[in-house]
């Protein structure tokens, strides 16, 4: 999976990584290039292999096959100690017998940095992570968020090329997660470090990343920017994992260049598609709820110029989300999600005409479910 042109320098590269654990395949032929200075998120449900991949990058696990390259140097057989990567553990793994400053100082001592420089670097790092004055505390005396920042500081203080983070915000509450995520992004940008960030939280991935790599069942499903993935999911899994979506299953009627016509519920839906499909093939398309319009019958409502009607139906449920409302519609025997302004006056039971903008439906490969 290419995240950039092959010519741009990659800080980290995986080539055909396989990993088997007790006979079961945990990673299946994973290839990945992460350009220097980027913040790359590995996103997937638990068991998708994202943490395994991260541990293979770090050298904490050996791949069954394949290569890991840091800075175009093959490090597959290099022990973890000599890879020069920073790793932030989910549990933070702060040394409980050392103070915050000693934790951060630990990698510098190992590198025989002289005392004066060590002290300066630790002070600089405490400042960077916003924990000045906390150097003498023990990790146990800090809050979860503070511990997380110490873990990041310790992993960055020896200026590693690559920072690997294993769900580092997973143990924190939602508000703190966002706050620390933004701070993490700032630190990463300031130090110019390449970051690989593992999470199962799509919101976190969208908030932080330059690029997102979606993984499932030991494979990379799709990689790209958040906007690309959201607008053009490659398959059913990606479409379903990144936010809510409406899936319409049907048969391919025909294709005109990048527009595939799908027969769904006795009507035709035109979908964008980058790959070719033969007529008669099973396929599915995805339409995001915010692209679906439900107009009360008789009203012309606010609707886009490139409006395509799908059918008429009724509103079955309405969920208040603040400025927007999420509607559940019954159309042509299918349940569809739609979004509307919450003050649009569309009540439960209202008869509506349902449609979407012409370019909203995206065809997904049916086979990758």
């Amino acid at each position, binding site marked *: 999976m290419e995240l950039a042109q092959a010519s741009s320098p990659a800080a980290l590269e995986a080539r055909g990584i396989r990993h088997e654990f007790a006979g079961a395949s945990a990673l299946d032929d994973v290839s990945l290039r992460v350009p220097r200075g980027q913040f790359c998120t590995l996103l997937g449900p638990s068991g998708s292999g994202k943490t395994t991949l991260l541990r293979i990058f770090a050298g904490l696990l050996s791949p069954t096959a394949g290569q890991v390259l840091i800075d175009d140097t093959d490090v597959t057989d290099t022990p973890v*100690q000599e890879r020069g990567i920073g790793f932030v553990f989910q549990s933070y793994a702060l040394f409980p017998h050392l103070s915050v400053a000693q934790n951060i100082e*630990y990698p510098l001592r190992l590198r025989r940095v002289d005392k004066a420089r060590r002290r300066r670097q630790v002070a600089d790092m405490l400042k960077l992570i916003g924990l000045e004055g906390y150097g003498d505390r023990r990790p146990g005396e800090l809050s979860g968020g503070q511990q997380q920042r110490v873990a990041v500081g310790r992993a960055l203080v020896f200026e590693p090329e690559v920072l690997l983070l294993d769900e580092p915000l997973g143990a924190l509450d939602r508000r703190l997660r966002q706050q620390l995520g933004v701070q993490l992004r700032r630190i990463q940008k300031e130090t110019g470090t390449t970051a690989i960030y593992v999470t199962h939280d799509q919101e976190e991935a969208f908030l932080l990343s330059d690029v997102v790599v979606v993984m499932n069942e030991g494979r990379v499903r799709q990689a790209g920017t958040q906007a690309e993935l959201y607008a053009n999911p490659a398959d059913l899994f990606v479409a379903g994992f990144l936010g809510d979506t409406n899936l319409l299953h049907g048969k391919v009627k025909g294709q005109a260049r990048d527009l595939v016509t799908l027969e769904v519920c006795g009507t035709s839906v035109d979908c964008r598609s980058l790959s070719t499909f033969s007529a008669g093939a099973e396929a599915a398309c995805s339409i995001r709820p915010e692209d679906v319009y439900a107009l009360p019958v008789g009203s012309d409502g606010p609707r886009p110029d490139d409006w395509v009607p799908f059918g008429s139906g009724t509103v079955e449920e309405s969920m208040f989300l603040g400025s927007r409302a999420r509607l559940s519609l019954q159309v042509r025997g299918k349940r569809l999600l739609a979004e509307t302004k919450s003050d649009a006056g569309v009540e439960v039971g209202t008869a509506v005409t349902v449609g979407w903008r012409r370019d909203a439906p995206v065809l997904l490969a049916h086979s990758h479910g």
Partner: protein
Amino acid sequence: MNSTEIQLARTEARARRGKSIPRPPLVLTRVLLAVPIFVLVAIFLAWPLLNVLLRSLSPTGVASYGSPSFDLGNYGAIFSDTVLRNIVIHTFVVAAWATAITTLLAFPVAYLLSRLSRRLATVILALIMIPFWISILIRLFAFTQLLGREGVVNSAAEALHLGGPYSLLFNTTAVVIGMVAYLLPYMILILYGGMSGIDPTLTTAAKTLGASGRQAFRTIYMPLVRPALIAGVLLIFVLSLGFFLTPAILGGATDTTIPIYIQQQVEVFQWGKASATGILLLAITVVGFAFALRLNGTGLLGGRPTGKGMAGREPLRFSPSTALLWVATGLVLVVLLLPLVVIVPTSFETTQSLTWPPRGFTMHWYGDVLSDEIWTTAILKSFLVALGTAILSTAIALVLARTIAAMRQGLVRAVVEGLVFAPLVVPVILLAVGIYDVETRLNLIGTNGGLIFAHTMIAFPLAYIVLSGALANVDPALEQAAWTLGASRARTFWTVVIPNILSSLFGALVISFVTSWDEVVIALFQTSIQKTLPVTIFSDLKSGVQPSVAAIATLLVAVVVLAVAVGFVISGRRHRGARATAAA
């Protein structure tokens, strides 16, 4: 941090990367560390038992590796020889009495503890555990003071005009009392572990369904507590069969039990029947342990209460029946703690023979003990051996705990871990004669080194319990974090793992030190001329009690109390449980 510096550091790092220094593979290091342990255990644990087995199968009682014989005559003698058969029957009868009384006393105490508030239960449990820390020898000595013709009990009976004097010492009654006092803490711990996990709302629920209090107890509570109860009874019974010191000191001439028989026979080099009885004892013990462990899990070995404390959530209200529970608990505490209190005043007594209440006050006996060369050399020898045992046992336990923790969960790991606990299961008398046999062949008998090796066999499993528990509490991510920061495996071990288990490391040292410092049975066979302190006390007790024993006993209690206090302060943890399985 400025960007040029970062770039510079990264260029250096790039240059370093990929140039890997060759190092010995991890597996090789592990093997190199495990081999000496394996050799030690083979020589001082497996070989002794094999020797005893071979001797039991030889009509002449000689272990010959050239032409091993296979004769079951010695085993037949257990049933045909009248004297031996009576000894076996007596051993089982005494064990049955001790088990029954222990269970009856322990049940109400454990039940009360399980229903008390956590804080109160902890205090009472701590009191019940105190005897674990005091040498069995000293506790037995205390019982001679309590039960003797002029002892505390008879003096009290006389003062209250209850008749007497009763002969309470040097008979089977005394043996059973001594055994019950030793076994009570074990049984209470096991039952408490089972009971504290039982939700009290269950019996309440049964009552809302129409069950009477008795019915709810019989149909709901008992079935839930039964596994712990059966496991406890089995364990207590097999432990009772292996008692050596208690019948030797508190028993009379007719109170010969299997372990005493073995010791007497081996002393006159009659190995055949003694070995066969020993192997029989081992077989029964192993089967008993196996069933107990199956019923109640490995928590038994650690001696830690396994319950989640659910039962304590609904504290018991006061009623006539709970008053009975308190009476039982008070009685148990008296049985456990009174003997320890009695020793101290005895040591200041002025007369040659021990009487109660003590007459006069003198420090004379302390002066005697500290100036008499017999006592001072014994103290020095005991100290050296205990120190050696502590260091060797802790080192072995540390290597084993690390190696086993690195093994994958499964059958192999279970077997290896089972073998680590094996020395705790083997009756001490059997280990004592077996090691005596082997060390005689190796010319190690009587040396401090030989005794250190022998004591290490019973001490390292206890150290292992402490250290494996501590290592399991160290998050593996800590080590991995140190690796990612650039620390080598060795450096990680010393700078991350060791500092985080320091308190338990100290705990392991204390436990193995105390185990050796208190040990009598193995040392009895090892030291004919230069005796350890407990063996000297044992000889004095056998030949007639002198107040100097009381003085030394008081000193010993003080040493243990001090060591434990220091251990508590440093570790802030409780390792009492691990010591629960120390030799009887």
